[in-house]
């Protein structure tokens, strides 16, 4: 067991931190305030290999590991969880095409996704199918060498802006085994979008419903075999959960760093509030809990990289812990700011609003407990 990052991983981390500090931090407040989807910044990140971190290098990906990705997303999220999280979703959708697409499909879509010439979205959730995702009702009927899609997806990150939608739809009977996965391009006839949702956080990325009305997509756009879609979606989410967990770790660390600066400067009762034991105890707990969540997340990432059968359980455990702890640490960081923490001039309240949703999406933290609990009980 070796808890040291490799020299390369330290380099990846340094590069991501440098990019976040110089290209994201100065604008993150603005992106949130004005609901700007920072396409140019995302493309600059893509030029550094951040849009296909664990996509194969033959199609423009970086060919790295999940652990590498977790380190990178933590750095990006330390300044802007919302933008980092969109990038993580793009990475997840791209990986699904990389892993389950045919050689032609990979060559067709991935170079543009790795450069972010095209943006990607992941479409599983429906108005009536959230935690019970396998009950989804969007249908894909086979018609010759095409499928015809009808239905609606809800809360789609990148919705309306993305060029590529990775869509889970029902091709067979009820339940998880009747689902298949399709790549749907934005310009296909029959694709439409709901109004942009007004959200608490995650304002640097668009979110809306995505609708399919007798949308025809070639059979070649199907990822994997018919009926494999739910499995593909869940495999995507194993990595997606690590990424979202890493984004929570990053946001919490960013908030805690801001709090540290504040308590060292803020004077009350004649001294810096950092000198009070009440403050130090709080900081000690924040640092300890954040580090324990990070350890579990990195372990889960290592298991997924090793294709260990326990990976799904550990990814769920790590996502639950990192997103809960991340939010709590951020909340404490806000508390340490006092009234200033509630003011938009300081970054903490933005990070807090961004991190709140991490406990809900990529499988809610209640569903994480279902995944973990079932596996423990069934041994």
């Amino acid at each position, binding site marked *: 067991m070796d808890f040291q990052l490799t*020299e*390369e991983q330290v*380099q*990846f981390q340094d*590069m991501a931190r*440098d*990019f976040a500090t110089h290209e994201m931090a100065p604008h993150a407040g603005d992106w949130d305030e004005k609901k700007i989807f920072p396409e140019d910044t995302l493309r600059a990140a893509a*030029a*550094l*290999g*951040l849009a296909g*971190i664990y996509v194969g*290098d033959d199609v423009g990906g*970086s*060919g*790295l590991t999940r652990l*590498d990705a977790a380190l990178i997303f933590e750095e990006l999220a330390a300044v802007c969880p919302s933008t980092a999280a969109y990038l993580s979703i793009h990475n997840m959708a791209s990986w699904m095409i990389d892993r389950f697409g045919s050689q032609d499909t990979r060559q067709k879509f991935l170079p543009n996704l790795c450069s972010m010439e095209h943006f990607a979205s992941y479409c599983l959730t429906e108005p009536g199918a959230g935690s019970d995702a396998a009950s989804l009702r969007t249908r894909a009927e086979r018609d010759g060498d095409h499928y015809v899609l009808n239905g609606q997806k809800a809360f789609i990150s990148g919705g309306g802006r993305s060029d590529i939608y990775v869509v889970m739809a029902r091709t067979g009977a009820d339940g998880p085994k009747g689902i298949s996965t399709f790549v749907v391009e934005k310009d296909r006839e029959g694709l439409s979008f709901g109004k942009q949702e007004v959200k608490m956080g995650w304002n640097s990325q668009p979110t809306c419903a995505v609708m399919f009305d007798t949308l025809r997509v070639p059979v070649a756009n199907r990822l994997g075999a018919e009926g494999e879609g739910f499995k593909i979606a869940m495999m995507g989410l194993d990595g997606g959960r690590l990424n979202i967990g890493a984004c929570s770790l990053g946001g919490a660390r960013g908030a805690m760093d801001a709090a540290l600066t504040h308590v060292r400067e803020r004077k009350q009762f004649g001294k810096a509030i950092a000198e009070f034991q009440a403050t130090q105890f709080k900081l000690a707990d924040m640092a300890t809990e954040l580090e324990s969540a990070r350890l579990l997340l990195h372990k889960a990432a290592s298991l997924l990289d090793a294709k260990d059968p326990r990976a799904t359980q550990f990814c769920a455990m790590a996502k639950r812990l990192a997103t809960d702890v991340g939010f709590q640490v951020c909340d404490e960081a806000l508390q340490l700011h006092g009234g200033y923490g509630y003011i938009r001039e300081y970054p903490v309240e933005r990070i807090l609003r961004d991190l709140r949703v991490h406990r809900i999406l990529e499988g809610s933290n209640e569903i994480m407990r279902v995944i973990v609990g079932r596996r423990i009980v069934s041994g």
Partner: protein
Amino acid sequence: MHIVVCIKQVPDSAQIRVHPVTNTIMRQGVPTIINPYDLVVLEEALRLRDQFGGKVTVLTMGPPMADESLRKALACGADAAVLLTDRFFAGSDTLATSFALSTAIKKIDAEEPVDIVFAGKQTIDGDTAQVGPGIAKRMGLNQLTYVSAIRSLDLGSRSIVVERRAEGGTQVLTTGLPCLITMLEGSNVLRRGSLPDMFRAARAEVTTWNAEQAGVEDITQCGLRGSPTVVKKVFAPKPRNEKAVLVETEGKSDAEIARAAIDALFTANPKLEAEIPELVLAS
């Protein structure tokens, strides 16, 4: 097009401490970086390669650990790296360094003809600015120093047009290839290395040459033996004993104080008025 960029691994001067008694630099435990002036020419070389095609080879002379600096350059997009390392090179001054580097560049050139050699304007540890020109002289290359921008490059006629900072203005110079160029800080900013490039750099093969492999025939021109420079003394300069200009502030507005301070400055430095436009132009 083949471009060779000479780089040097130096102690990070921001983190150097000077021994309080001996006034010598305390190098122990000081992290090393690529000489910042070298980053400017590395970026320029990469841009020319991106625009015109070809290859960028980075070259350094130093201890085996200088390999780290070469890998950083590879991570930023350089195509090949050569490390000159040999105990015979130890203790080189600028004369011996330019000898070793130019010998190696001649060998690189014999394998794949070199069009441009870039070197940093100077290093932050030695600060001599002699090695680049030394290489040019030894190799008979046209030399362009203190370049602030490359205006154009024509591979057909093998000519290059650059802007060079000169006292009181900018020179525009044209010369033929091959040539050696040193550039001013601030001319550009080195790009970030991408993940695939970092990945590649960590696994890339760095060509390592000792003196013999680099093509050195006369070992007496290398290292300490080839270095006539003797460091006689290292010392911190004494502060100059100059009087400060005092301006009366009692009962005056900020504008009046500022006016009085400026007047005093111009009275004390009669030539300042004529120099200001040049300073502004040069900045």
